[in-house]
């Protein structure tokens, strides 16, 4: 398995840790960057099928015109820029507005990006903690534990119809809290 962090982790098949050096060929570019590009997309898309398609789109767009003389840092910035545009286009096509986005910066360090991940996880915990118990429970069961609506209803001791209503209302409340936090 290749490296997992975006965009400068050092484990796995990373072939060019020195960001000032160059990749020997396109296969090295792919091996070094495929996983962080995918991860950057999937956590902003929320589903695997679209994340796989968008990752493929990024590399299909990127590799063919890529200059072999570009440095590792330039390649990563280039991939990040393409990923950003591909994600924006995806949202415009599917929902008509940007749901999530990628910061418009040339390259984010591993430390900075990891900090963003931690901040996002903390934000989720903060929002969940602000919800009434039954709202927090249904979101935890459905989104964090991946339980079905039937399993969640059983766990909570409510009907399936009631669990659906709870989930709907809990998500609305959580979204309102998140929006309030952001403004």
């Amino acid at each position, binding site marked *: *398995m*290749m490296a*997992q962090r975006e965009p400068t982790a050092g484990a796995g098949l990373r072939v060019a840790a020195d960001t000032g050096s160059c990749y020997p060929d*396109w*296969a090295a570019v*792919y091996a070094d960057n*495929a*996983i962080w590009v*995918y*991860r950057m997309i*999937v956590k902003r898309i*929320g*589903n*695997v*099928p*679209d*994340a*796989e*398609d*968008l*990752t*493929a*789109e990024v*590399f*299909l*767009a990127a*590799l063919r*015109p*890529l200059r072999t003389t570009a440095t590792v840092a330039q390649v990563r910035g*280039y991939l990040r*820029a*393409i990923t*950003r*545009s*591909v994600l*924006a*286009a995806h949202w*415009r*096509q*599917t*929902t*008509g*507005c*940007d*749901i*999530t986005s990628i910061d418009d910066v040339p390259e984010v360090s591993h430390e900075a990006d990891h900090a963003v991940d931690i901040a*996002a*996880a903390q*934000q*989720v*915990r903060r*929002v969940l903690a602000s919800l009434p118990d039954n709202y927090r429970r249904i*979101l935890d069961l459905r*989104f964090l*534990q991946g339980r079905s609506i039937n399993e969640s209803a059983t766990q909570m001791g409510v009907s399936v119809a009631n669990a659906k209503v709870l989930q*709907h209302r809990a*998500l609305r409340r*959580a*979204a309102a809290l*998140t929006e309030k936090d952001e403004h």
Partner: protein
Amino acid sequence: MNARRLRRYIDDLLYGRRPRPFDADRFEAAQIRTAIELRAARTASGAPSEDFLTDLQRRLAAWIPGAQENADPPNGPHATRRQVVVAASAAALAGSAGVVAGAATERVAPDGRSHANRPSMQPGDGSWQVVAASADVPAGVMRPFDVGSVVGFVVGSTANPRRSRGCARTRAAGCGSTGP
């Protein structure tokens, strides 16, 4: 009506399916964003499958000239739904709206052959937009652009015979295009 579409979108997310598109308003967008953040909190690693990585690598090998001679083309049996949709949209676009000619040629026929001999199409309802100066897009360099309703990339290409006139190839997400 949108409430049902939003519920269906969230259900698709929860079941790992590809959500069906719909035009979301601001608060619906916020709910989708929250759902994605909750899902992301669950999938801590978010790593792709080995099968996907291997398959994409093979498709890229077929896509990049000289990398591999006998691999399946990207629009072959392993083409993604998105590639197919983009190709279909581009074909429809080329035949109707008349915004650009040779739309998404690299996706419609990703066989590495030049399509430079195709005739240019004049804009009908649309218009040509300047997305970058030629000097800013030397051969082999990509620049992203965003002109409101269209987001894409412009790539300087030595394979493009019009290059000598300062032209470049553009690729717009969702409606790829070529033009000066």
